[in-house]
C-alpha cells in the first residue's frame, strides 16, 4: 500500500515533470500554479535546471530555447500569465520544437485568486497547439510523460491545462518510473525553422495546419478520452463532460442512477470519432464543461458535418452555467433538467434546509475577507500615502498582497500585472487634475512594471510611483525575485537594485525609505507630491512572514489604558493586532503584534509604547 502517497495536485504535477525527464523548467509564480516550481526548486538531488523567470513571456522563451536544443522543457504559469506569454506562443506554434515542451497553465474558475476566469482551452484553439485537460490528480501526473512524447512526435509544444481543484486538491497518488533518456543539448542551425521571416512563417503556418489531422487521430486514442455507451438501447440520453467537470458529472450520474451514454473528454482537438459515436446513440446530448462552450461548439460542428439531428445542449439552453466552477450539485441540476428525470437530486431538499436555518437564526456572520498581516509594511505605507495625498487624489494599484489594501482607499484600480504605472499615466495624460499616486510591488515591478515606468518618464507623466519593496514575491507563497540576490534554488546571484533600475530608466526623483519609519515616509511622500514629473518612492521593508521565518523578532507594543482616550484612531489603521474593547472603551494590542511600531505615530496621545521586557 505504501507505493501510494498523499499529494497536493501541484506536487504530483512536479513529480510528473521529473518522471517525464524535463531538463529545463521555467515559470512565473501565480496562484494556483506556484507550488509546481516551488516543489522542483526545493528538491535536493536535481538533474534539471529550474528558474523563476521575471515574467511569463520570458519564461516561455527560456523553455522554448531549451526545447530548440533537443532537451525536454516545461514552462509554468497561471491562466492570465498566458496572456503575457501569448506573443511567443502564437509563433512557437509555427516554429514548433525539437525536444518535448509542455506549457502548464493553471486556470482559476470562480476567480479564487485571480482578476478573471478566462479559459485557456481557447488559446489552444487560437494557436492550434494541442491541449490536455486532466480530470484527476493521478491523471495530471501520469499525462506529463505522454505529453512530452506527443510534443516530440509532432514537433509542437503541448498546453497542459490544470485548474484550481486539480492544483490545490489532494489525492493518493501512485508514482511512476523516471524517464532516463537525457539528450545532450545541441542547437541545430535551422534558419527556415527558427527564423520566422515572412517567407518561412508562411511555410510553417501551412505545416501547422497540415499536422492538425494527425494530431487529432493520435489524441482520439488518448486515455484521457473515454466513451461508455449506455446499457439500455432504448435510452437516448448522452452526456459529454470535459476535464475536472467529468468527475463531477460521473458522480451526479451515479447519484441520479441515470442510464446514459457518457463521454469523458480530456484532449483538444476533441476526439471526433467518439463524439460521432455518442451522437449516433443519443437524441439529446448534454455537454458539461467549466467556463467556455469549447467542447459544445465543437460537438455542434461535428453533428452538422454528419447530419445528426441530436439536440445539443449545455451552455445552450442555460443548463450549465458559463461562469464559475462546477460541482456535483450543478451537474445533478443540469442532468435532471436536461432529461426531465423525475428522481429528485438531494440538492433541492438541501436548499430548503439552508433557507430554514437562516430563518431560525438572527445571527449575522461577520465577513472574513483576507487582510494584510499584522505588521505588514504595506499598511504603513498606504497610511502615510493617504495622509499626504488625501482623499482628493487618484490611486491606481497593481497585483500582489498590497491589493488587499483596497479597504484603506489607496487601491482604486487593479487590471493586470504591471498596469498601475501605465493606468496612472493614461489618467494623467487624459487631463485628470487631481494628484495621482500609484502603487506596485517589487516583483510586479520587475515583471512588467519597469516598461511602464520608462514610458511614464519618457512621456513626462506627472505622477508618483510607489514601489512597495518587501523583498519577496509574497502573495503567491514567498518566491525569490531579482531584488533578493538569490535564485529559485537559493543560489547566490546579483541583487538587482530597484533604485538604480529606476534611475537607469530615466527617473530623476527616486527616494528610498524604510516603510516602518512612518515620519520619514510621510516626508518623502510630501516631496514626491510636490515634484513636477514622474517621482518614484521606494518603500523598503521585509515581508513580516518572511522576516519571522528568518528568525527576526521585534519587541511587541502595548497601549497604556491611562493615556488611551478611546478615539479609535489606531483601530482605524486596520492592523489585526489592534482591537477595541467595547467594555472598557480602550484599544488594546493583542499577541498578534509583530513590533513594527508604526501605530506609535498614529496615536496622538502617546499611549502606545514598546514592551521592554
Amino acid at each position: 500500500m505504501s507505493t501510494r502517497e498523499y499529494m497536493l495536485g501541484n506536487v504530483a504535477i512536479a513529480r510528473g515533470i521529473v518522471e517525464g525527464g524535463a531538463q529545463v523548467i521555467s515559470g512565473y509564480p501565480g496562484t494556483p500554479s506556484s507550488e509546481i516550481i516551488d516543489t522542483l526548486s526545493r528538491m535536493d538531488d536535481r538533474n534539471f535546471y529550474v528558474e523563476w523567470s521575471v515574467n511569463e513571456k520570458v519564461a516561455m522563451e527560456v523553455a522554448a530555447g531549451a526545447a530548440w536544443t533537443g532537451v525536454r522543457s516545461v514552462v509554468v504559469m497561471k491562466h492570465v500569465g498566458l496572456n503575457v506569454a501569448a506573443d511567443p506562443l502564437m509563433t512557437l506554434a509555427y516554429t514548433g520544437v525539437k525536444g518535448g515542451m509542455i506549457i502548464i497553465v493553471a486556470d482559476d474558475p470562480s476567480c479564487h485568486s485571480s482578476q478573471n476566469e478566462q479559459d485557456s482551452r481557447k488559446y489552444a484553439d487560437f494557436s492550434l497547439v494541442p491541449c490536455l485537460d486532466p480530470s484527476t490528480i493521478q491523471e495530471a501526473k501520469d499525462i506529463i510523460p505522454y505529453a512530452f512524447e506527443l510534443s516530440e512526435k509532432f514537433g509542437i509544444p503541448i498546453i497542459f491545462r490544470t485548474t484550481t481543484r486539480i492544483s490545490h486538491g489532494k489525492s493518493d497518488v501512485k508514482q511512476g518510473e523516471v524517464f532516463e533518456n537525457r539528450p545532450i543539448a545541441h542547437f541545430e542551425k535551422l534558419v527556415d525553422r527558427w527564423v520566422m521571416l515572412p517567407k518561412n512563417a508562411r511555410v510553417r503556418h501551412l505545416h501547422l495546419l497540415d499536422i492538425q489531422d494527425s494530431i487529432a487521430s493520435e489524441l482520439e486514442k488518448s486515455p484521457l478520452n473515454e466513451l461508455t455507451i449506455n446499457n439500455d438501447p432504448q435510452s437516448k440520453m448522452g452526456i459529454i463532460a470535459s476535464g475536472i467537470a467529468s468527475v463531477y458529472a460521473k458522480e451526479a450520474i451515479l447519484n441520479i442512477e441515470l442510464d446514459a451514454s457518457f463521454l469523458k473528454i480530456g484532449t483538444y482537438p476533441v476526439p471526433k470519432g467518439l463524439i460521432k459515436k455518442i451522437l449516433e446513440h443519443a437524441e439529446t446530448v448534454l455537454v458539461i464543461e467549466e467556463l467556455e462552450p469549447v467542447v459544445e461548439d465543437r460537438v455542434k460542428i461535428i453533428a452538422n458535418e454528419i447530419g445528426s439531428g441530436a439536440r445539443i445542449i449545455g451552455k445552450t439552453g442555460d443548463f450549465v452555467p458559463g461562469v464559475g466552477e462546477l460541482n456535483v450539485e450543478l451537474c445533478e441540476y443540469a442532468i435532471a433538467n436536461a432529461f426531465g428525470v423525475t428522481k429528485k437530486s438531494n440538492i433541492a431538499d438541501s436548499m430548503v434546509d439552508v433557507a430554514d436555518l437562516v430563518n431560525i437564526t438572527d445571527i449575522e456572520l461577520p465577513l472574513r475577507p483576507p487582510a494584510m498581516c499584522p505588521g505588514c509594511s504595506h499598511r504603513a505605507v498606504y497610511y502615510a500615502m493617504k495622509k499626504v495625498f488625501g482623499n482628493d487624489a487618484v490611486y491606481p494599484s497593481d497585483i500582489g498582497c498590497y491589493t488587499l489594501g483596497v479597504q484603506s482607499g489607496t487601491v482604486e484600480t487593479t487590471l493586470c500585472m504591471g498596469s498601475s504605472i501605465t493606468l496612472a499615466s493614461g489618467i494623467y495624460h487624459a487631463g485628470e487634475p487631481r494628484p495621482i499616486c500609484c502603487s506596485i510591488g517589487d516583483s510586479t515591478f520587475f515583471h512588467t512594471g519597469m516598461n511602464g515606468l520608462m514610458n511614464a518618464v519618457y512621456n513626462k507623466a506627472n505622477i508618483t510611483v510607489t514601489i512597495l519593496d518587501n523583498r519577496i514575491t509574497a502573495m503567491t507563497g514567498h518566491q525569490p525575485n531579482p531584488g533578493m540576490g538569490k535564485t529559485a534554488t537559493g543560489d547566490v546571484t546579483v541583487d538587482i537594485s530597484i533604485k538604480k533600475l529606476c534611475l537607469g530608466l530615466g527617473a530623476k526623483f527616486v527616494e528610498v525609505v524604510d516603510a516602518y519609519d512612518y515620519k520619514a515616509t510621510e516626508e518623502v511622500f510630501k516631496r514626491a507630491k510636490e515634484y513636477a514629473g514622474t517621482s518614484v518612492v521606494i518603500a523598503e521593508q521585509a515581508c513580516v512572514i518572511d522576516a519571522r521565518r528568518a528568525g527576526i523578532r521585534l519587541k511587541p507594543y502595548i497601549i497604556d489604558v491611562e493615556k488611551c482616550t478611546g478615539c479609535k484612531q489606531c483601530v482605524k489603521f486596520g492592523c489585526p493586532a489592534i482591537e477595541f474593547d467595547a467594555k472598557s472603551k480602550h484599544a488594546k494590542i493583542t499577541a498578534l503584534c509583530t513590533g513594527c511600531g508604526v501605530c506609535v505615530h498614529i496615536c496622538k496621545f502617546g499611549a502606545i509604547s514598546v514592551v521592554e521586557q
Partner: protein
Amino acid sequence: MITDKEKLELVISGVGGQGAILASDIIGKAAVLKGIPIRAAETHGMAQRGGSVVNHIRLGCELGSMIPLHGADVLLALEPAEALRYIDLLSGNGVVIVNTEPVLPVTVTSGGNDYPDVSKIVEVLKSTHKVIAFNASELAIKAGHPQTMNVVMVGAASKYLPVGKDLLIDCIKEMVPPKTVDINVRAFELGREQVPSHNQ
C-alpha cells in the same frame, strides 16, 4: 472495493493561519497508509491571509474532491463563526465538532461589524445537528503550545475517522517539527478525550 466503513466525508473550516491544512494532511496521510483512497480540496493563496478557509476531505472516494451540499458526515470547525458559515455542507445526521475560541475578523476589529455571541452560535448549531463544542485553544495551551489547536481538533475528530488512533499518532510524529512531537501527541489525546467513547 471501498467498503462503507472506509467512507467518511469531512469538512475542516477555520481561519487562514490556524493550521487547517496540516490537520487535513495528518488525516489524509493516515488514510493513504491504510490503503483508503482519498480526495481533498483546499484553500490556498489569497484566502490564507486571515481569510475564511475550508478544506474538503473525502475518505474512500475516487471521484471529485468537492463534498456536495449536505454531504459531509463531520464538520470540524477550528473557529465558531466558521462552523456556522459552512453548516450547509453537513448532512442532517452529521456532527459538528467546534472550537469555541473565536478569532475576530478584521471587519470586527477595525470595522463596524459585531461578532456574534459564541453561546448563541453553539445554540443555533445544536438546533439542527449533533454538536461537540469545547475550547480547543485552551486545551492546546494546556498541551504546551497554542499552535497545536489544530492537532487537538484532529484528536477530537479521530473517533469518527476510519483510521486508527495509533496510525494517526504515527503520522503526527512524522509531520510536526521534531521538538514539538510530545506536545502534539498530548494535544491529540486532550482532543480525543472530548468525544464520548461510544463513537469509537
